[in-house]
Protein backbone atom coordinates (compact mmCIF):
# COMPACT_ATOMS: atom_id res chain seq x y z
CA UNK A 1 0.00 0.00 0.00
CA UNK A 2 0.93 3.66 -0.29
CA UNK A 3 3.24 5.28 2.24
CA UNK A 4 1.89 7.49 5.04
CA UNK A 5 4.01 10.40 3.78
CA UNK A 6 2.24 10.33 0.43
CA UNK A 7 -1.20 10.15 2.08
CA UNK A 8 -0.43 13.06 4.39
CA UNK A 9 0.87 15.13 1.46
CA UNK A 10 -2.38 14.41 -0.37
CA UNK A 11 -4.33 15.51 2.73
CA UNK A 12 -2.29 18.70 2.86
CA UNK A 13 -3.16 19.43 -0.76
CA UNK A 14 -6.83 18.69 -0.06
CA UNK A 15 -6.87 20.95 3.00
CA UNK A 16 -5.25 23.79 1.02
CA UNK A 17 -7.90 23.37 -1.68
CA UNK A 18 -10.64 23.63 0.97
CA UNK A 19 -9.21 26.92 2.20
CA UNK A 20 -8.81 28.31 -1.34
CA UNK A 21 -12.30 27.10 -2.26
CA UNK A 22 -13.88 28.67 0.81
CA UNK A 23 -12.15 31.95 0.00
CA UNK A 24 -13.59 31.77 -3.53
CA UNK A 25 -17.09 31.20 -2.16
CA UNK A 26 -16.97 34.58 -0.45
CA UNK A 27 -17.61 36.44 -3.72
CA UNK A 28 -20.39 35.81 -6.27
CA UNK A 29 -17.98 36.08 -9.21
CA UNK A 30 -15.59 33.41 -7.94
CA UNK A 31 -18.11 31.30 -6.01
CA UNK A 32 -18.77 28.62 -8.65
CA UNK A 33 -15.04 28.05 -9.06
CA UNK A 34 -14.57 28.09 -5.28
CA UNK A 35 -17.16 25.37 -4.85
CA UNK A 36 -15.54 23.24 -7.57
CA UNK A 37 -12.10 23.70 -6.00
CA UNK A 38 -13.57 22.53 -2.68
CA UNK A 39 -15.09 19.49 -4.42
CA UNK A 40 -11.74 18.68 -6.00
CA UNK A 41 -10.12 18.85 -2.56
CA UNK A 42 -12.76 16.44 -1.30
CA UNK A 43 -12.09 14.03 -4.16
CA UNK A 44 -8.34 14.04 -3.41
CA UNK A 45 -9.03 13.41 0.27
CA UNK A 46 -11.35 10.50 -0.57
CA UNK A 47 -8.92 8.86 -3.01
CA UNK A 48 -6.05 9.24 -0.54
CA UNK A 49 -8.16 7.62 2.18
CA UNK A 50 -9.02 4.70 -0.11
CA UNK A 51 -5.33 4.23 -0.94
CA UNK A 52 -4.56 3.84 2.76
CA UNK A 53 -5.79 0.31 2.35
CA UNK A 54 -7.18 -2.19 4.84
CA UNK A 55 -10.64 -1.36 3.62
CA UNK A 56 -13.56 -3.56 2.88
CA UNK A 57 -14.09 -2.26 -0.63
CA UNK A 58 -17.41 -3.96 -1.40
CA UNK A 59 -19.12 -2.12 1.42
CA UNK A 60 -17.42 1.20 0.71
CA UNK A 61 -18.26 1.16 -2.97
CA UNK A 62 -21.88 0.17 -2.37
CA UNK A 63 -22.11 2.89 0.30
CA UNK A 64 -20.67 5.43 -2.16
CA UNK A 65 -23.16 4.46 -4.85
CA UNK A 66 -26.20 4.59 -2.58
CA UNK A 67 -25.13 7.88 -0.97
CA UNK A 68 -24.10 9.58 -4.21
CA UNK A 69 -27.36 8.58 -5.91
CA UNK A 70 -29.55 9.80 -3.06
CA UNK A 71 -27.53 13.01 -2.63
CA UNK A 72 -27.47 13.80 -6.34
CA UNK A 73 -31.15 13.04 -6.94
CA UNK A 74 -32.17 15.21 -3.99
CA UNK A 75 -29.88 18.03 -5.15
CA UNK A 76 -31.21 17.97 -8.72
CA UNK A 77 -34.90 17.30 -8.11
CA UNK A 78 -35.56 19.61 -5.18
CA UNK A 79 -37.69 22.71 -5.76
CA UNK A 80 -35.79 25.93 -5.14
CA UNK A 81 -38.40 26.92 -2.54
CA UNK A 82 -37.63 23.74 -0.60
CA UNK A 83 -33.90 24.49 -0.43
CA UNK A 84 -33.82 25.42 3.31
CA UNK A 85 -35.13 22.04 4.43
CA UNK A 86 -32.77 20.18 2.10
CA UNK A 87 -29.78 22.04 3.54
CA UNK A 88 -31.04 21.18 7.03
CA UNK A 89 -31.24 17.51 6.03
CA UNK A 90 -27.68 17.47 4.63
CA UNK A 91 -26.34 18.95 7.89
CA UNK A 92 -28.13 16.23 9.81
CA UNK A 93 -26.62 13.48 7.65
CA UNK A 94 -23.16 14.90 8.37
CA UNK A 95 -23.93 14.66 12.09
CA UNK A 96 -25.20 11.06 12.01
CA UNK A 97 -22.20 10.01 9.92
CA UNK A 98 -19.85 11.33 12.64
CA UNK A 99 -21.83 9.49 15.31
CA UNK A 100 -21.69 6.20 13.36
CA UNK A 101 -17.99 6.50 12.49
CA UNK A 102 -17.01 7.17 16.08
CA UNK A 103 -19.21 4.27 17.24
CA UNK A 104 -17.71 1.86 14.70
CA UNK A 105 -14.19 2.98 15.59
CA UNK A 106 -14.90 2.48 19.28
CA UNK A 107 -16.13 -1.10 18.71
CA UNK A 108 -13.14 -1.85 16.52
CA UNK A 109 -10.63 -0.34 18.94
CA UNK A 110 -11.80 -2.06 22.11
CA UNK A 111 -11.77 -5.34 20.18
CA UNK A 112 -8.00 -5.16 19.73
CA UNK A 113 -6.89 -2.82 22.51
CA UNK A 114 -8.61 -2.95 25.91
CA UNK A 115 -7.10 0.42 26.92
CA UNK A 116 -7.54 3.06 24.17
CA UNK A 117 -6.03 6.50 24.63
CA UNK A 118 -7.96 9.14 26.57
CA UNK A 119 -7.79 11.46 23.57
CA UNK A 120 -9.59 8.94 21.43
CA UNK A 121 -12.23 8.26 24.07
CA UNK A 122 -12.98 11.93 24.74
CA UNK A 123 -13.21 12.60 20.99
CA UNK A 124 -15.54 9.61 20.60
CA UNK A 125 -17.88 10.96 23.28
CA UNK A 126 -17.82 14.41 21.63
CA UNK A 127 -18.60 12.90 18.21
CA UNK A 128 -21.53 10.98 19.65
CA UNK A 129 -23.09 13.89 21.55
CA UNK A 130 -22.60 16.57 18.86
CA UNK A 131 -23.46 14.16 16.06
CA UNK A 132 -26.72 13.09 17.71
CA UNK A 133 -27.77 16.67 18.54
CA UNK A 134 -26.98 17.72 14.94
CA UNK A 135 -28.88 14.82 13.39
CA UNK A 136 -32.07 15.09 15.42
CA UNK A 137 -31.99 18.87 15.57
CA UNK A 138 -31.70 18.94 11.77
CA UNK A 139 -34.57 16.49 11.35
CA UNK A 140 -36.80 18.72 13.49
CA UNK A 141 -35.66 21.79 11.51
CA UNK A 142 -36.50 19.89 8.31
CA UNK A 143 -39.95 18.98 9.64
CA UNK A 144 -40.65 22.57 10.68
CA UNK A 145 -39.63 23.96 7.30
CA UNK A 146 -41.47 21.25 5.37
CA UNK A 147 -44.55 21.73 7.56
CA UNK A 148 -44.85 18.11 8.66
CA UNK A 149 -45.15 16.37 12.05
CA UNK A 150 -44.01 19.26 14.29
CA UNK A 151 -45.61 22.72 14.51
CA UNK A 152 -43.91 25.76 13.00
CA UNK A 153 -44.43 27.67 16.27
CA UNK A 154 -42.06 27.29 19.21
CA UNK A 155 -43.11 24.42 21.46
CA UNK A 156 -42.66 25.67 25.01
CA UNK A 157 -43.46 24.18 28.41
CA UNK A 158 -42.59 24.99 32.03
CA UNK A 159 -39.11 23.96 33.10
CA UNK A 160 -37.94 23.28 29.55
CA UNK A 161 -34.45 24.69 30.16
CA UNK A 162 -34.01 22.42 33.18
CA UNK A 163 -35.03 19.38 31.12
CA UNK A 164 -32.42 20.27 28.50
CA UNK A 165 -29.69 20.84 31.09
CA UNK A 166 -30.50 17.47 32.71
CA UNK A 167 -30.30 15.72 29.32
CA UNK A 168 -26.96 17.36 28.53
CA UNK A 169 -25.71 16.42 32.02
CA UNK A 170 -26.78 12.79 31.53
CA UNK A 171 -25.03 12.60 28.14
CA UNK A 172 -21.81 14.06 29.51
CA UNK A 173 -22.04 11.91 32.66
CA UNK A 174 -22.33 8.74 30.57
CA UNK A 175 -19.46 10.07 28.47
CA UNK A 176 -17.25 10.33 31.57
CA UNK A 177 -18.16 6.76 32.52
CA UNK A 178 -17.27 5.60 29.01
CA UNK A 179 -13.90 7.37 29.05
CA UNK A 180 -13.09 5.66 32.35
CA UNK A 181 -14.33 2.31 31.17
CA UNK A 182 -13.96 2.03 27.37
CA UNK A 183 -15.01 -1.60 27.12
CA UNK A 184 -18.53 -0.66 28.31
CA UNK A 185 -19.43 0.37 24.77
CA UNK A 186 -23.17 0.33 25.52
CA UNK A 187 -22.66 3.67 27.30
CA UNK A 188 -21.89 5.18 23.91
CA UNK A 189 -25.33 4.26 22.58
CA UNK A 190 -27.07 5.42 25.78
CA UNK A 191 -25.39 8.81 25.63
CA UNK A 192 -26.30 9.09 21.95
CA UNK A 193 -29.96 8.46 22.84
CA UNK A 194 -29.97 11.21 25.49
CA UNK A 195 -28.23 13.61 23.09
CA UNK A 196 -30.82 12.73 20.41
CA UNK A 197 -33.67 13.72 22.71
CA UNK A 198 -31.75 16.90 23.54
CA UNK A 199 -31.40 17.70 19.83
CA UNK A 200 -35.15 17.32 19.29
CA UNK A 201 -36.04 19.48 22.30
CA UNK A 202 -33.51 22.19 21.41
CA UNK A 203 -34.94 22.84 17.94
CA UNK A 204 -38.61 22.13 18.63
CA UNK A 205 -38.58 25.14 20.98
CA UNK A 206 -37.52 27.50 18.18
CA UNK A 207 -39.96 29.15 15.76
CA UNK A 208 -39.95 28.63 12.01
CA UNK A 209 -38.72 32.14 11.19
CA UNK A 210 -35.62 31.64 13.35
CA UNK A 211 -34.62 28.62 11.24
CA UNK A 212 -31.94 30.58 9.27
CA UNK A 213 -29.99 30.91 12.51
CA UNK A 214 -30.67 27.30 13.47
CA UNK A 215 -29.51 26.00 10.08
CA UNK A 216 -26.30 28.03 10.27
CA UNK A 217 -25.70 26.74 13.80
CA UNK A 218 -26.44 23.09 12.93
CA UNK A 219 -24.08 23.47 9.98
CA UNK A 220 -21.43 24.57 12.43
CA UNK A 221 -22.25 21.60 14.71
CA UNK A 222 -21.92 19.14 11.82
CA UNK A 223 -18.41 20.57 11.27
CA UNK A 224 -17.53 20.26 14.96
CA UNK A 225 -18.77 16.65 14.99
CA UNK A 226 -16.60 15.92 11.94
CA UNK A 227 -13.57 17.53 13.61
CA UNK A 228 -14.14 15.46 16.77
CA UNK A 229 -14.32 12.34 14.61
CA UNK A 230 -11.04 13.46 13.03
CA UNK A 231 -9.48 13.23 16.49
CA UNK A 232 -10.98 9.76 16.96
CA UNK A 233 -9.43 8.53 13.70
CA UNK A 234 -6.28 10.67 13.96
CA UNK A 235 -7.20 11.94 10.51
CA UNK A 236 -5.85 15.42 9.78
CA UNK A 237 -7.95 16.27 6.76
CA UNK A 238 -11.12 15.53 8.71
CA UNK A 239 -9.96 17.73 11.60
CA UNK A 240 -9.14 20.58 9.20
CA UNK A 241 -12.28 20.44 7.07
CA UNK A 242 -14.48 19.95 10.13
CA UNK A 243 -12.92 22.98 11.82
CA UNK A 244 -13.42 25.08 8.67
CA UNK A 245 -17.11 24.21 8.55
CA UNK A 246 -17.47 24.67 12.30
CA UNK A 247 -15.85 28.11 12.20
CA UNK A 248 -17.62 29.40 9.09
CA UNK A 249 -20.97 28.16 10.44
CA UNK A 250 -20.51 29.98 13.73
CA UNK A 251 -19.44 33.20 11.94
CA UNK A 252 -22.58 33.02 9.79
CA UNK A 253 -24.70 32.35 12.89
CA UNK A 254 -23.24 35.44 14.49
CA UNK A 255 -23.96 37.59 11.41
CA UNK A 256 -27.59 36.47 11.41
CA UNK A 257 -28.05 37.11 15.12
CA UNK A 258 -26.63 40.62 14.67
CA UNK A 259 -29.08 41.20 11.81
CA UNK A 260 -31.88 40.62 14.30
CA UNK A 261 -30.18 42.46 17.18
CA UNK A 262 -30.59 39.35 19.30
CA UNK A 263 -28.07 37.22 21.12
CA UNK A 264 -27.61 33.59 20.15
CA UNK A 265 -28.83 32.62 23.63
CA UNK A 266 -32.02 34.60 22.99
CA UNK A 267 -32.65 32.83 19.69
CA UNK A 268 -31.97 29.38 21.17
CA UNK A 269 -33.63 29.70 24.55
CA UNK A 270 -35.65 32.89 24.67
CA UNK A 271 -37.73 33.26 21.58
CA UNK A 272 -39.55 36.54 21.17
CA UNK A 273 -40.94 37.72 24.50
CA UNK A 274 -44.64 37.14 23.95
CA UNK A 275 -45.44 38.30 27.48
CA UNK A 276 -44.76 41.99 26.98
CA UNK A 277 -47.93 43.95 26.33
CA UNK A 278 -47.29 45.90 23.15
CA UNK A 279 -49.74 47.99 21.19
CA UNK A 280 -53.03 46.27 20.40
CA UNK A 281 -53.72 45.58 16.74
CA UNK A 282 -57.01 47.56 16.87
CA UNK A 283 -55.30 50.70 18.22
CA UNK A 284 -52.64 50.53 15.53
CA UNK A 285 -54.84 49.77 12.54
CA UNK A 286 -58.28 51.15 13.57
CA UNK A 287 -59.74 53.02 10.59
CA UNK A 288 -56.33 54.02 9.26
CA UNK A 289 -55.57 51.19 6.86
CA UNK A 290 -56.09 52.10 3.19
CA UNK A 291 -56.72 49.31 0.74
CA UNK A 292 -55.85 49.59 -2.93
CA UNK A 293 -56.34 47.83 -6.26
CA UNK A 294 -54.10 46.52 -9.04
CA UNK A 295 -55.18 49.42 -11.29
CA UNK A 296 -54.16 52.07 -8.76
CA UNK A 297 -50.80 50.35 -8.21
CA UNK A 298 -50.26 50.19 -11.98
CA UNK A 299 -50.77 53.97 -12.23
CA UNK A 300 -48.35 54.61 -9.36
CA UNK A 301 -45.70 52.37 -10.93
CA UNK A 302 -46.01 53.91 -14.39
CA UNK A 303 -45.24 57.38 -13.05
CA UNK A 304 -42.44 56.19 -10.75
CA UNK A 305 -38.78 56.57 -11.57
CA UNK A 306 -37.36 54.36 -8.86
CA UNK A 307 -39.08 51.29 -7.40
CA UNK A 308 -37.75 49.05 -4.64
CA UNK A 309 -39.19 45.59 -3.98
CA UNK A 310 -38.73 44.10 -0.51
CA UNK A 311 -39.27 40.32 -0.66
CA UNK A 312 -39.89 38.13 2.38
CA UNK A 313 -40.81 34.55 3.24
CA UNK A 314 -44.31 35.22 1.86
CA UNK A 315 -42.83 35.49 -1.63
CA UNK A 316 -41.33 32.02 -1.25
CA UNK A 317 -44.59 30.55 0.08
CA UNK A 318 -46.61 32.10 -2.79
CA UNK A 319 -43.93 30.95 -5.32
CA UNK A 320 -44.17 34.50 -6.66
CA UNK A 321 -40.55 34.93 -7.79
CA UNK A 322 -41.24 34.32 -11.50
CA UNK A 323 -44.19 36.72 -11.54
CA UNK A 324 -41.93 39.24 -9.79
CA UNK A 325 -39.34 38.78 -12.56
CA UNK A 326 -42.02 39.55 -15.20
CA UNK A 327 -43.00 42.71 -13.33
CA UNK A 328 -39.32 43.64 -13.04
CA UNK A 329 -38.77 43.22 -16.80
CA UNK A 330 -41.95 45.11 -17.68
CA UNK A 331 -41.06 48.09 -15.49
CA UNK A 332 -37.43 48.19 -16.61
CA UNK A 333 -38.60 48.17 -20.25
CA UNK A 334 -40.64 51.28 -19.41
CA UNK A 335 -37.54 53.01 -18.06
CA UNK A 336 -38.30 52.54 -14.34
CA UNK A 337 -35.33 51.64 -12.15
CA UNK A 338 -36.23 48.56 -10.10
CA UNK A 339 -34.13 47.21 -7.24
CA UNK A 340 -34.58 44.54 -4.60
CA UNK A 341 -33.85 45.27 -0.95
CA UNK A 342 -32.59 42.15 0.82
CA UNK A 343 -32.78 41.87 4.60
CA UNK A 344 -30.17 39.44 6.00
CA UNK A 345 -32.78 37.30 7.76
CA UNK A 346 -35.57 37.48 5.17
CA UNK A 347 -36.74 33.95 4.37
CA UNK A 348 -35.83 30.76 6.13
CA UNK A 349 -32.19 30.16 5.35
CA UNK A 350 -29.19 32.42 4.84
CA UNK A 351 -29.44 33.90 1.34
CA UNK A 352 -32.93 32.45 0.75
CA UNK A 353 -34.20 35.53 -1.13
CA UNK A 354 -31.01 35.78 -3.21
CA UNK A 355 -31.39 32.19 -4.39
CA UNK A 356 -35.08 32.54 -5.27
CA UNK A 357 -34.60 35.79 -7.19
CA UNK A 358 -31.54 34.42 -8.96
CA UNK A 359 -33.60 31.38 -9.95
CA UNK A 360 -36.03 33.80 -11.60
CA UNK A 361 -33.15 35.40 -13.56
CA UNK A 362 -33.07 38.69 -11.66
CA UNK A 363 -29.55 40.12 -12.24
CA UNK A 364 -27.43 39.81 -9.10
CA UNK A 365 -26.46 43.50 -9.07
CA UNK A 366 -30.14 44.39 -8.64
CA UNK A 367 -30.16 42.77 -5.20
CA UNK A 368 -29.13 45.48 -2.75
CA UNK A 369 -28.29 44.71 0.86
CA UNK A 370 -30.11 46.50 3.65
CA UNK A 371 -27.22 48.72 4.74
CA UNK A 372 -26.63 49.93 1.18
CA UNK A 373 -30.23 50.69 0.28
CA UNK A 374 -31.41 52.32 3.51
CA UNK A 375 -29.58 55.66 3.03
CA UNK A 376 -31.32 56.06 -0.36
CA UNK A 377 -34.83 55.06 0.73
CA UNK A 378 -36.07 58.67 0.71
CA UNK A 379 -35.47 58.89 -3.04
CA UNK A 380 -37.63 55.83 -3.70
CA UNK A 381 -40.96 56.60 -5.37
CA UNK A 382 -42.67 53.28 -4.69
CA UNK A 383 -41.58 50.56 -2.28
CA UNK A 384 -43.36 47.22 -2.72
CA UNK A 385 -43.31 44.94 0.32
CA UNK A 386 -43.99 41.40 -0.87
CA UNK A 387 -44.55 38.88 1.89
CA UNK A 388 -42.27 40.59 4.41
CA UNK A 389 -43.44 41.95 7.75
CA UNK A 390 -41.18 42.16 10.79
CA UNK A 391 -38.13 43.20 8.72
CA UNK A 392 -39.96 46.39 7.64
CA UNK A 393 -41.67 47.17 10.97
CA UNK A 394 -40.68 50.73 12.01
CA UNK A 395 -41.47 49.86 15.65
CA UNK A 396 -37.96 48.39 15.74
CA UNK A 397 -36.63 51.96 15.53
CA UNK A 398 -39.24 53.74 17.63
CA UNK A 399 -40.39 51.56 20.54
CA UNK A 400 -37.64 50.45 22.92
CA UNK A 401 -40.07 48.05 24.64
CA UNK A 402 -40.97 46.18 21.48
CA UNK A 403 -39.72 42.60 21.14
CA UNK A 404 -37.94 43.63 17.94
CA UNK A 405 -36.50 46.87 19.41
CA UNK A 406 -33.15 47.68 17.84
CA UNK A 407 -33.42 45.09 15.07
CA UNK A 408 -32.12 46.68 11.87
CA UNK A 409 -34.98 47.02 9.38
CA UNK A 410 -35.37 48.10 5.79
CA UNK A 411 -36.68 51.67 6.05
CA UNK A 412 -39.50 51.34 3.51
CA UNK A 413 -41.61 53.81 5.49
CA UNK A 414 -39.29 56.56 4.21
CA UNK A 415 -40.25 55.91 0.59
CA UNK A 416 -42.80 58.27 -1.00
CA UNK A 417 -45.40 55.52 -1.36
CA UNK A 418 -45.37 52.04 0.19
CA UNK A 419 -47.43 49.20 -1.23
CA UNK A 420 -47.80 46.17 1.02
CA UNK A 421 -48.96 42.98 -0.68
CA UNK A 422 -50.32 40.67 1.98
CA UNK A 423 -53.31 38.40 2.47
CA UNK A 424 -54.46 40.03 5.71
CA UNK A 425 -53.27 42.19 8.60
CA UNK A 426 -52.07 39.12 10.50
CA UNK A 427 -48.83 39.66 12.42
CA UNK A 428 -45.43 38.28 11.39
CA UNK A 429 -43.21 35.95 13.39
CA UNK A 430 -42.66 38.47 16.19
CA UNK A 431 -46.43 38.49 16.78
CA UNK A 432 -46.81 42.27 16.90
CA UNK A 433 -48.86 44.70 14.77
CA UNK A 434 -47.00 46.69 12.15
CA UNK A 435 -47.80 50.45 12.13
CA UNK A 436 -46.36 50.61 8.62
CA UNK A 437 -49.67 49.14 7.38
CA UNK A 438 -51.54 52.12 8.80
CA UNK A 439 -49.06 54.82 7.77
CA UNK A 440 -50.24 57.78 5.66
CA UNK A 441 -48.05 56.80 2.72
CA UNK A 442 -48.95 53.09 2.79
CA UNK A 443 -51.50 51.30 0.61
CA UNK A 444 -52.46 47.71 1.38
CA UNK A 445 -53.14 45.28 -1.48
CA UNK A 446 -54.84 42.31 0.19
CA UNK A 447 -54.08 39.38 -2.09
CA UNK A 448 -51.98 36.26 -2.61
CA UNK A 449 -48.43 37.31 -3.53
CA UNK A 450 -48.29 35.63 -6.93
CA UNK A 451 -51.85 36.60 -7.99
CA UNK A 452 -51.28 40.17 -6.83
CA UNK A 453 -48.16 40.60 -8.96
CA UNK A 454 -49.85 39.00 -11.98
CA UNK A 455 -52.85 41.34 -11.64
CA UNK A 456 -50.53 44.36 -11.42
CA UNK A 457 -48.76 43.21 -14.59
CA UNK A 458 -52.03 42.91 -16.54
CA UNK A 459 -53.19 46.28 -15.21
CA UNK A 460 -50.00 47.93 -16.47
CA UNK A 461 -50.32 46.22 -19.85
CA UNK A 462 -53.95 47.30 -20.25
CA UNK A 463 -53.30 50.90 -19.28
Amino acid at each position, binding site marked *: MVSDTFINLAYLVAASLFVV*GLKGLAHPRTA*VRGNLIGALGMLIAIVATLLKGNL*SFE*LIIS*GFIVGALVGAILAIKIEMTAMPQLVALYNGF*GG*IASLLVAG*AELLKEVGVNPDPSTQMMVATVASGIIGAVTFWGSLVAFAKLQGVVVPDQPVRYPGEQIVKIVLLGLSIGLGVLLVQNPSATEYYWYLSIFASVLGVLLVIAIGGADMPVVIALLNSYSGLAAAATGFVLN*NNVLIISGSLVGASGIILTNIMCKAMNRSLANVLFGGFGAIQETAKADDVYGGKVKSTSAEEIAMLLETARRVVIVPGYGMAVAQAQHAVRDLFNLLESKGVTVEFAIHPVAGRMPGHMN*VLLAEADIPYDKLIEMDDINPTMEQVDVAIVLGANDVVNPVARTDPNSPIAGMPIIDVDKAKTVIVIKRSLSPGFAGIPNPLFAADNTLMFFNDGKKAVQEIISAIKEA
Partner: protein
Amino acid sequence: MPFPATIVGALLSAGGAMLVHESALFTIPGLNLEVTLTNLLGFLAVVFATINVVGGFMVTHRMLEMFKRKD
Protein backbone atom coordinates in the same frame (compact mmCIF):
# COMPACT_ATOMS: atom_id res chain seq x y z
CA MET B 1 -23.23 34.67 -0.35
CA PRO B 2 -25.96 32.06 -0.19
CA PHE B 3 -24.21 29.19 1.53
CA PRO B 4 -20.58 29.70 2.37
CA ALA B 5 -20.47 26.70 4.64
CA THR B 6 -21.76 23.81 2.57
CA ILE B 7 -18.30 22.30 2.17
CA VAL B 8 -19.26 19.82 4.78
CA GLY B 9 -17.19 17.24 6.61
CA ALA B 10 -14.94 14.82 4.83
CA LEU B 11 -16.44 11.95 6.70
CA LEU B 12 -15.41 9.36 4.23
CA SER B 13 -12.53 8.25 6.35
CA ALA B 14 -15.37 6.22 7.76
CA GLY B 15 -13.94 3.51 5.58
CA GLY B 16 -11.03 3.24 8.01
CA ALA B 17 -13.36 1.69 10.53
CA MET B 18 -14.19 -1.24 8.31
CA LEU B 19 -11.88 -3.90 9.55
CA VAL B 20 -13.40 -7.25 10.32
CA HIS B 21 -12.50 -8.30 13.86
CA GLU B 22 -15.74 -9.67 15.20
CA SER B 23 -18.33 -12.29 14.55
CA ALA B 24 -20.65 -11.64 11.62
CA LEU B 25 -24.23 -10.46 12.13
CA PHE B 26 -25.19 -11.92 8.76
CA THR B 27 -23.60 -12.71 5.42
CA ILE B 28 -24.44 -11.42 1.97
CA PRO B 29 -24.46 -14.61 -0.13
CA GLY B 30 -23.85 -13.06 -3.58
CA LEU B 31 -20.75 -11.20 -2.42
CA ASN B 32 -19.71 -13.88 0.05
CA LEU B 33 -19.37 -11.01 2.49
CA GLU B 34 -19.57 -11.26 6.26
CA VAL B 35 -21.26 -8.19 7.76
CA THR B 36 -20.29 -7.33 11.33
CA LEU B 37 -21.78 -4.60 13.52
CA THR B 38 -18.65 -2.51 12.97
CA ASN B 39 -18.75 -2.58 9.21
CA LEU B 40 -22.53 -2.19 9.15
CA LEU B 41 -22.08 1.07 11.08
CA GLY B 42 -19.25 2.03 8.75
CA PHE B 43 -21.39 1.29 5.70
CA LEU B 44 -24.26 3.47 6.98
CA ALA B 45 -21.73 6.20 7.79
CA VAL B 46 -20.40 6.12 4.23
CA VAL B 47 -23.96 6.38 2.87
CA PHE B 48 -24.84 9.38 5.03
CA ALA B 49 -21.47 11.08 4.53
CA THR B 50 -21.69 10.64 0.76
CA ILE B 51 -25.19 12.12 0.69
CA ASN B 52 -23.84 15.05 2.70
CA VAL B 53 -20.76 15.61 0.55
CA VAL B 54 -22.14 14.90 -2.94
CA GLY B 55 -25.48 16.57 -2.21
CA GLY B 56 -23.83 19.53 -0.50
CA PHE B 57 -21.47 20.31 -3.38
CA MET B 58 -24.14 19.73 -6.03
CA VAL B 59 -26.81 21.82 -4.38
CA THR B 60 -24.32 24.62 -3.77
CA HIS B 61 -23.32 24.42 -7.41
CA ARG B 62 -26.95 24.54 -8.49
CA MET B 63 -27.62 27.62 -6.37
CA LEU B 64 -24.44 29.37 -7.51
CA GLU B 65 -25.15 28.68 -11.20
CA MET B 66 -28.21 30.89 -10.82
CA PHE B 67 -26.10 33.85 -9.90
CA LYS B 68 -24.21 33.70 -13.16
CA ARG B 69 -24.76 36.72 -15.35
CA LYS B 70 -27.26 35.86 -18.07
CA ASP B 71 -26.82 38.31 -20.91
